């Protein structure tokens, strides 16, 4: 009789899986960045909605890098590191642009009437609301580093046998 280990062993690595990819700081990179983090989120065992929230948060953060840190396209790269651990997924986004501290941006007013609705600041709202942890630091001489963490709900560990 051959021993076949439970699928969970493959789906939930005991040592962290870390992959870094670099993308050109352009808006047409967003779809490829989305594909990368979606794949890693699925590998991390996040449920369908959690995968969507990660893709959204990363998309918003990368749009901010291009718009605010680089203040234009093709100024520098965006390095995206995904780290799968036993309890969830950590994403680190690094750029070489000007300091852009998301904590300095006030939350948008989401209750005003249509005419007064702000059209900016929504992206950070999604990042703050949908990620379990958000950490920002500026490293002089290097650039911005934004760390996002999404926890895998414990209830999902058992049924986590999805493969791609």
């Amino acid at each position, binding site marked *: 009789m051959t021993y076949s280990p439970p699928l969970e062993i493959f789906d939930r690595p005991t040592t962290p899986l870390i992959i870094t990819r670099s993308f050109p700081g352009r808006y047409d990179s*967003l779809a490829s960045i989305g594909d990368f983090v979606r794949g890693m989120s699925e590998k991390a065992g996040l449920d369908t909605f959690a995968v969507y929230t990660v893709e959204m948060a990363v998309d918003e953060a990368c749009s901010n890098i291009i718009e605010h840190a680089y203040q234009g396209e093709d100024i520098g790269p965006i390095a995206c590191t995904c780290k799968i651990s036993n309890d969830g997924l950590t994403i680190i986004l690094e750029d070489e642009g000007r300091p852009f501290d998301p904590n300095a941006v006030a939350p948008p007013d989401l209750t005003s009437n249509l005419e007064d609705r702000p059209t900016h600041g*929504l992206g950070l709202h*999604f990042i703050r609301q949908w990620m379990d942890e958000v950490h920002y630091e500026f490293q002089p001489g290097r650039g911005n580093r934004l760390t996002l963490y999404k926890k895998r709900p414990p209830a999902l560990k058992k049924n986590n046998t999805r493969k791609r």
Partner: protein
Amino acid sequence: MEITHTQYKHCDLVKVKGRVDSYTAPQLSETFNKITEEGRFKIALDMSELDFMSSAGLRALINTQKVCKRYNRGELVLVAVPENIRAALDLAGFIPLFKIYDDVLTAIGNF
């Protein structure tokens, strides 16, 4: 992202498929702007095959809604909103600002 636009007598139907992000949202805004610049302000957006919409897409929706609703001349309504995108609309506080229909026929019939 793929956009198709159908003009009816009383309203316009726009269908957007795929991914709306900071790269593709300007095309969606441009489609809406062309319609409103022709003096047409009753628009239904079919989102049934939309996979992803970032805040750039939400901005296109809110800006178009402002233009359409001004002087009570019309409105932008949303059709067949996927669950994930509905959660984003909800988090952005957009649900009270848009009528949402389950299917295109009902949406168009209500104009």
